[in-house]
């Protein structure tokens, strides 16, 4: 039987979206493999979460044990390793998230599994599981096949698939924890919440975004001048915040903020998925980038394919004139 085992992900009492997003993919793959979808939920007092997942018409295996009160990759690995032996799923899926990235490669090595990380597509062709993933920040796609195997492993990119609506109700089955005692070599200590800065960019009406294409911090006034004229707040890609051009709380994307301005003007941002995931709520997007194939243009309403250093200062001047 070609069952698909999906690892649910949750944090601080909330089921994370990726858990359901993977169910946009898993049922068709399971069907092609001649099996069914099983979702594995590890946690402590996670009954309501199990019901929520089961509401998508899938079977949910629940290990409800205080040992899993907080996420721990090593504990998860032990459980998955045991359950792969017991259930022999044809494919295991988890998120390419801070959890999945910390877990999947080690599990693949331990069990000798064919492994494709960060997939954005998955299909079965004549019994062969084939995944699509991106290289070079989305500029090239690769089709990768898993060689003939008892069990394969993929991690699925966040927000690459739309979470399906609830459907019929599947069964919830409690199983005993294959892990009986705590581990001494890895301990969860605490969560630290994101710092709150002077401006909350999630509330900004107009945002000017900067990325690697700004080149250096002495070019920051180019963006600042534009922002001042149109009363925008500044935000940036990971590269802009890492470089120290902007504080971390101005970072937009999966590891930063999700924003929803009515206007977003971004410059020198190529549009890696991590950034794009944070701007889906923007109403109008203007992108300025030198590379005509930059993925950011797929998101834009208005595109200027040019050097930001040539265009933006003039844009600022023209706006000044027009706005008087």
């Amino acid at each position: 039987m070609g069952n698909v085992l999906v690892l649910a992900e949750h944090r601080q009492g909330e089921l994370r979206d990726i858990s359901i997003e993977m169910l946009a993919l898993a049922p068709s793959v399971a069907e092609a493999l001649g099996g069914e979808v099983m979702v594995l939920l590890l946690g402590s007092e996670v009954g309501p979460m199990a019901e929520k997942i089961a509401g998508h018409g899938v079977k949910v295996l629940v290990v409800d044990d205080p040992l899993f009160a907080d996420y721990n990759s090593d504990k998860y690995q032990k459980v998955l390793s045991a359950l792969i032996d017991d259930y022999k799923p044809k494919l295991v899926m988890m998120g390419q998230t801070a959890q999945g990235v910390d877990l999947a490669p080690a599990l693949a090595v331990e069990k000798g599994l064919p492994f494709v990380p960060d997939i954005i597509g998955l299909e079965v062709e004549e019994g062969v599981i084939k995944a699509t993933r991106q290289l070079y920040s989305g500029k090239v796609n690769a089709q990768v096949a898993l060689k003939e195997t008892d069990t394969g492993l993929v991690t699925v990119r966040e927000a690459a698939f739309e979470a399906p609506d609830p459907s019929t109700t599947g069964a919830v089955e409690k199983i005993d924890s294959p892990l009986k005692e705590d581990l001494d070599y890895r301990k969860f200590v605490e969560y630290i919440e994101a710092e709150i800065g002077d401006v909350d960019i999630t509330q900004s009406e107009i945002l000017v975004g900067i990325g690697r294409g700004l080149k250096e911090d002495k070019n920051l006034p180019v963006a600042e001048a534009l922002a001042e004229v149109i009363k925008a707040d500044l935000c940036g890609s990971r590269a802009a915040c890492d470089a120290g051009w902007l504080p971390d709380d101005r970072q937009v994307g999966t590891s930063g903020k999700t924003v929803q301005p009515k206007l977003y003007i971004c410059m020198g941002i190529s549009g890696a998925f991590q950034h794009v995931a944070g701007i889906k709520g923007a109403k109008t997007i203007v992108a300025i980038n030198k590379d005509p194939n930059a993925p950011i243009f797929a998101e834009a309403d208005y595109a200027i394919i040019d050097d930001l250093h040539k265009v933006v200062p003039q844009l600022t001047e023209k706006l000044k004139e027009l706005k008087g």
Partner: protein
Amino acid sequence: MKIFTCIKYVPDTSEAEVKLDSEGTGVDSSRFSFDINDADNYAVEESVLIKEKHDGDVTVVSIGPKSSDVMIRMAMAKGCDRAIRIEDERIATHDPLMVAKVLAGAIKDQEFDLVFTGCMAEDYGQAATGVALAELLGVSHAAYVKKVEIEDGKVKVHRELEGGLREVVEISLPAVLTIQTGINEPRYAPIRGIRQAQKKELKVMNLDDLGIPEGEVNAEASRIVLEKLYIPVVESKAEIIEGEPEEKAEKLASILVKGGLV
């Protein structure tokens, strides 16, 4: 404190058009400029900071061509002590598990407390090598590390989670940490360091030198097949604003103002 830091030489494609090679299974990298992978640059800095604080030494390990020596010398100029460059065309470099096996082969018989890698390479973007390496070495690990504090036989790390949240985890040493960008401020190499780096040991090895059988890390050994590459079509619904830079600026300004967007 014995540290190994794994780095990769990658093309900068952030503003470059990427084209496939004539076979369609690789990328034509002839027009790209190469440099150290961004996250690996932070890993080098973190290893040198820890060396300075805890009195250790750092060995750089990299799989790559001779042209990457310039990157390796730069890491040594910043304070890394020696380097191993592995060059062997038989390695299935598209599979992070094969890459991890080669790195493990270079590290496993030596004494080490910490192994650093960047959390993700900019070219393949798999974010998998470091954690796979930990499993192969049989040691603890943490991925997406934004802070490292060493305290008696343990390391307390801050892991970057989604949405700006961090998770503090305590793991035992030895350990592999995959370093996230922004953890520190990578230094510029001092002139004196650049001179000293020329004298530091840079050993070039292949699979035979490392005692790794080809059949454990080549395309046959890999459990995945890279079937094809293709350039995805960017489906843009955007209105493209044409003209000279000044005309573009003028047109966009007018759209923004007339449309009541600003």
